[in-house]
């Protein structure tokens, strides 16, 4: 007799891809993510009281209203609402290289869209103003950060319309955005970061100079890390430049992996040097990891 598989706590990105609405997707991800946290240290970033809630076993006793207990002999938990002072811009790379998916049905761009939607929902839930910027060789979509009712619909609407194409000039785009985003806030960059780490470091420095708190999510397909092809020979074509190149995967594999690992290491070093929160994500990873990483790093600030 076979044992039924235990239900996973995290949702597979491929499963999320079947969800048609980004809003629903984001809610599913975030609510699921939030409910899974037994002891949420992320109740809110501000101290503005919102409501009481009856105490349930397991709630943090720090938020128990002792005065009310003394008066009424009943247990209530105080709940707070975060401040809305912070604005966050989600920067999404839509270059042609983001349209890559090897074994999964989720492209890097789709993953970036899911991640951006989830982050937007999460931030909106925390009453932060959320903005959206999409770029390839230059910025082609810019939704300024707002915290109004219905803004999320704009965000999700623009997110769903993003199409891959064009060449990347990530560093230039970030420099451009550093000039555009005048108000200090959080900048979340979602890209495959196929650019020279030195140039990226300069753009990160530019954003930091403008007072932005930068978070970098490098989204890659797992095969971009592994270079795992069964073919004896391949004709690889650059998605952006259409340059073609015959390759023997079994011969090139080791060298490629080495160079990719070096690039990721360089990216990590570059991010750390510029006080950028860096996280490498593959399109196989559930979005929860990204959210957890994001919130963990934000909690440490």
């Amino acid at each position, binding site marked *: 007799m076979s044992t039924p598989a235990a239900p996973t706590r995290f949702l597979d990105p491929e499963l999320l891809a079947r969800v048609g609405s980004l809003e629903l997707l984001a809610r599913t991800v975030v609510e699921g993510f939030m409910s899974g946290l037994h002891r949420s240290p992320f109740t809110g970033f501000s101290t503005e009281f919102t409501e009481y809630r009856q105490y349930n076993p397991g709630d943090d006793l720090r938020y128990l209203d002792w005065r009310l207990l003394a008066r009424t002999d009943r247990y209530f938990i105080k709940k707070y609402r975060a401040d809305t002072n912070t604005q966050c811009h989600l920067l999404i790379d839509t270059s042609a290289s983001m349209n890559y998916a090897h074994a999964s049905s989720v492209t890097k761009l789709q993953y970036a869209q899911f991640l951006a939607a989830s982050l937007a929902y999460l931030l909106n839930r925390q009453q932060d103003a959320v903005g959206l910027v999409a770029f390839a060789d230059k910025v082609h979509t810019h939704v300024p950060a707002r915290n109004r009712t219905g803004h999320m619909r704009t965000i999700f609407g623009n997110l769903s319309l993003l199409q891959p194409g064009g060449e990347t000039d990530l560093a230039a785009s970030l420099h451009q955005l550093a000039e555009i985003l005048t108000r200090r806030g959080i900048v979340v960059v979602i890209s495959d970061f196929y650019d020279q780490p030195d140039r990226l470091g300069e753009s990160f420095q530019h954003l930091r100079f403008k007072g932005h708190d930068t978070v970098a999510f490098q989204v890659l397909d797992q095969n971009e890390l592994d270079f795992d092809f069964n073919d004896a020979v391949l*004709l*690889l074509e650059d998605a952006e430049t259409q340059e073609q190149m015959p*390759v023997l995967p079994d011969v090139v594999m080791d060298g490629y992996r080495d160079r990719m690992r070096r690039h990721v290491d360089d990216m990590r070093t570059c991010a750390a040097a510029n006080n950028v929160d860096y996280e490498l994500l593959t399109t196989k990873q559930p979005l929860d990891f990204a959210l957890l990483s994001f919130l963990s790093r934000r909690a440490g600030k």
Partner: protein
Amino acid sequence: MSFLTPLFFLGVAALAAPILVHLVRRTRARRVQFPALVFVRQVPQRTIRRRTLHNLLLLLLRCLAILLIVIAFTRPFFSGGSAARDNSAAGATVILIDNSLSMRRENLFAEAQRRAEGALDEARNDEQIALMSFDKRYTVINRFLTDKNRVRFGISSLGAGWDATDYEQALRGAESLLSEVQTTGPKRIVMISDFQMPGWSQATATFKLSNNTQLTTFDVGGNNPPPNIAITNVEARGVVFGQKYLDNVVVHVSNFSDTPRDHIQVDFQINDQTVEKRDISLNSRDSRVVEFTGFNLNDGTNRCTINIAAGDFAPDNRFYFTLRRETPAKGLIIENASRGRSDSLHLQSALTTDDDLPFTFALKSAGSVDPASIPDYALVVLNDSGPLSPTLADALVRFVNGGGQMIVSTGPRTSPDSFNTTLQQISPVTLREAVQTKMGESVAITQVKFDHPIFEVFQESGRLASANVIGYFRSEPRQNASVLARFEDGSPALVEATTGKGRVLLFTSSLGPSWNDLPLTPLYLPFIHQMVRYAGTHEENAWYGLGQTFTVNKEKEAGPPAIDTPSGTRLSENRITPDGDLLVTAREPGFYRLRYNAAPGFAAVNSDGAEGDFTKLNFGEFMAGVTGGAGGAEGAEANRNLSGEEIEGRQRVWWALLLVALLLLLAESFLARRTKMVKMIG
């Protein structure tokens, strides 16, 4: 390069198989979009090229293996004579052209000249080339030259000769010539011949080429030598004294082919007139002897020929020889007839029974001989003549010193003291005491030199010891005397010595029945005849071999005669002996005409009969012999004009090709497996 079975080249079509497999099974590249191409590009691309090369190499190996297998089946062989040449320095080459008699058949010599010119053309322009011809001897035509035209002229001026072949002498000459040249390049001998078996004998060959000398051979003789019947020898006595030739003229005829021949007519002619014809049959590789005797001869020199009508190689179907009939000289028998009874009855009878003796004898007693008449005789026989008068003894001494021949026999009337005193100057021995055996006892003649002309006729029978000798003189041979036979006790029986220009034979027993029973035995007649012939006959060959030097006697009170060669040209030899005779070296077969004033003479010359044997020599043994086997064979190359099959059989190139093909297939298998494993591991 030639091919024994070129039809197998159709198998080249099999090359399409690996090419098709290569094309069909070639991995087709799938086009895949990949964003991180920038990192792929950083990987050294030579590995990809190497893989491509691997595939091409595999294809190449497969194609090459198939091609080699196909070529192996065509059974290739190298027929060219050009050896691998050292390009670093110009070498030296000796071109040896066989111009022996056998090269006269068909157009062999023209072919040899063509091959020589071919070798000349192949030589580098700065190569030093010498030209030699050879038969039994070698002749240097051109010493080392770089002027090819002069060598070419030398080749064209050559012609086939008449003599036999000796490859060893030729190679010795060529090696000797090569030792003269200073070069750091290769030294090469190009030998062009029909390579017949009689020209080289492994048993007697002692010469080996040095290791740094290459030998290239061209066989122009063809693979199937024509059948040939030849007269290989004629045995005859060159001089006779009677009208009728009583000895045998022995003719040797040989069949050098594997085909039996019947009804070969042997025609014996004297002075162009047929004397007798014989019809013989010869089995394969057979020799027959035909004898002619009892024919009459004219006075003087008779030109004799033996012809066979074999219809093959003509030069060895005729044999030349001469038989000269001379008038017998005068001989004198001196005996002691003091008691009025001749003791020379048996001797006289023996010397008059044969009209083919070189002497006609007169019998006189010692007292009746006029010493002044002694010079009229050519031979004097002292038959137990007893004491001689001093005048007669002096005359005899002068006779011998002047070139006269003398036979002396002792006996009961011989006084040792008187003999030793009067004939001391010319006697081969000093007589000691007379020995008389006891009654009923005798001694035999032993220790006979059977190789001496006198005794050679007794060699087969060995019956000379059957004579019983009861009396003889012990004697002491003088210096330079030769003891031809001894008695049982070791005392000399027959002694020979030359004195002045003459010669004396001395028998220490009697030639009559006084001291032995020799006259009563069948040995007596041949013994006496042999002694007389030996004393009276000067050596004269019935024929001479090519290259042999013979003496042409001068004419009395004149110089040597003019001589015409067999081809009719006047000979210009001028080698004169101190006696005024002429030495002539035989250069061509036939009759040399000696133009004496009195009557013409002739000298017959013949080629070596063995030269008619065109059988191929064992080429493997020859090359191993002259190059010193495996060690000395380095660099030596033998390219005979063999059949393609024979050359291919010797070279067996197809073995090497199949071996290389097998190695290629193994390499292909290893490479393919390695490529596959790399792919699996990757």
